[in-house]
């Protein structure tokens, strides 16, 4: 085997060995490494305030108001423009966030641990659909919901999760992902089965945790609201799912000579990747303009460039790469079930291997295409496909559509140039 193949096999094996599990919840300022008092994390590669697109701007304003750093949107805008906020990618703090992906110090986050390496990862709780912070909405209703999530959802959920973890060890997300793939989810745009599995698993422990709890929010009424909230959000699993992916890919670490793509992420302006053999260097280019099925009333001019850390799902070997598991999604994104399968088949051509745990029933339980190989991408001209949502370019207007988005090639070319420079001699 050549050195490249060897290095990639090593990286691939490390990825397969990860065992991400939910072990608790906490507040970002308490548990997210490197989180500072005036810091806001965001999706995608590093970006300055001036270059942020609508959804991210809106999410930043909302977060500033949520933290109480300003009282009105105008004040919040001035606050940000004055450089009073430190911005940093979630990825630099072992975290990931969908769409705008903004994490502020007072936000509750999932805490995941890799039972293989002991390392951790974090993600916020998913707010649901419609007018939400991650789409750039920041009106009072959004802030109200964020506060409810911190005051009620968080403590109740935390009690249940910790109760579960005490009795069973961490909540095994890898198994949940594997099962959900057999139930019609692909874990990026479709998380209904995974969400259901999670709620089902936690339910008795949530109920049990009320008994003898010191937490004032831990009441039956609130528990009912928590169940209603989670049950009403088909994408509740997305955030911990993304954190599981992040944790697993993070666990690869630096592998000398490997061309495995370890991160793909977008901030609404730029698309960025990282490579296992090139450490934590970002390789960026303009984000793709999603060309997707639009909800009624929206036109192509309304669509914001691609945004979110959720590309980590495809990097992990699910999402768009597992479309063959989710034929139902085609009603949502256009096309036929065969189209869905064809996307998966295409991704095999740029991956290092086939997933040992995530399998596709309709392809005779073949493992999902896993471990994007930078070299294959550059040689074949095939860039990864994502199955993702598209946001309105104006803050707070929400989601305008969903579908298949092809990642832009420039970032891969830049990474290939750096790879050659690094490993030529």
């Amino acid at each position, binding site marked *: 085997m*050549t*050195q*490249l*193949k060897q290095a990639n096999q090593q990286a691939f094996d490390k990825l397969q060995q990860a065992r991400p599990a939910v072990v608790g919840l906490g507040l970002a300022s308490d548990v997210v490494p490197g989180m500072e008092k005036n810091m806001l994390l965001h999706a995608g590669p590093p970006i300055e305030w001036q270059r942020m697109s609508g959804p991210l701007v809106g999410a930043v304003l909302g977060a500033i108001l949520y933290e109480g750093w300003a009282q009105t949107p105008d004040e919040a805008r001035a606050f940000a423009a004055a450089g009073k906020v430190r911005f940093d990618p979630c990825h630099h703090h072992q975290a990931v966030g969908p769409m705008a992906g903004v994490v502020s110090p007072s936000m509750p986050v999932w805490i995941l641990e890799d039972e293989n390496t002991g390392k951790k990862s974090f993600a916020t709780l998913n707010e649901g659909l419609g007018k939400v912070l991650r789409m750039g909405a920041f009106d009072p209703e959004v802030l109200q919901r964020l506060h409810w999530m911190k005051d009620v959802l968080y403590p109740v959920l935390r009690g249940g999760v910790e109760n579960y973890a005490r009795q069973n060890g961490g909540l095994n997300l890898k198994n949940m992902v594997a099962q959900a793939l057999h139930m019609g989810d692909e874990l990026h745009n479709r998380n209904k089965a995974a969400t259901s599995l999670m709620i089902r698993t936690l339910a008795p422990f949530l109920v049990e945790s009320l008994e003898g709890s010191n937490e004032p929010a831990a009441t039956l009424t609130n528990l009912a609201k928590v169940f209603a909230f989670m049950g009403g959000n088909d994408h509740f699993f997305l955030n911990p799912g993304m954190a599981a992916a992040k944790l697993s890919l993070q666990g690869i670490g630096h592998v000398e000579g490997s061309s495995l793509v370890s991160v793909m992420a977008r901030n609404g302006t730029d698309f960025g990747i990282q490579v296992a053999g090139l450490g934590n260097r970002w390789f960026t280019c303009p984000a793709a303009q999603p060309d997707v099925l639009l909800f009624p009333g929206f036109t192509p001019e309304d669509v914001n460039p691609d945004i979110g850390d959720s590309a980590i799902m495809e990097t992990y070997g699910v999402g768009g790469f597992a479309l063959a598991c989710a034929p139902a999604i085609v009603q949502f994104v256009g096309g036929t079930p065969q189209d869905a399968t064809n996307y998966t088949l295409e991704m095999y051509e740029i991956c290092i291997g086939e997933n040992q745990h995530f399998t596709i029933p309709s392809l005779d339980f073949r493992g999902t295409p896993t471990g994007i*190989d930078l*070299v*294959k*991408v*550059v*040689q*074949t*001209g*095939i*860039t990864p496909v994502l199955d993702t949502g598209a946001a309105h370019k104006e803050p707070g207007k929400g989601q305008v559509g969903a579908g298949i988005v092809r990642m832009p*090639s420039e970032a*891969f*070319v830049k990474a*290939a*140039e750096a*790879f*050659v420079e690094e*490993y*030529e001699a």
Partner: protein
Amino acid sequence: MDSKHAINPLDALLQKGPVVVNMGMESFFHDLQAQEVPVVHVQWRPPLATQGLLQKLQKIGGESS
């Protein structure tokens, strides 16, 4: 050649008849299908990198990956 007894791949092609990977014009694919020749058509697209970069990548990859 692995062994003295292994048949020369050109001779094997002539003996067995063509089993084809078609890269490029799709009409060739249709014509081969019409003659019942086993054929798969590649929806080929150009590489992302320049020839120079590809060659260097190939060198790093050792034998073609």
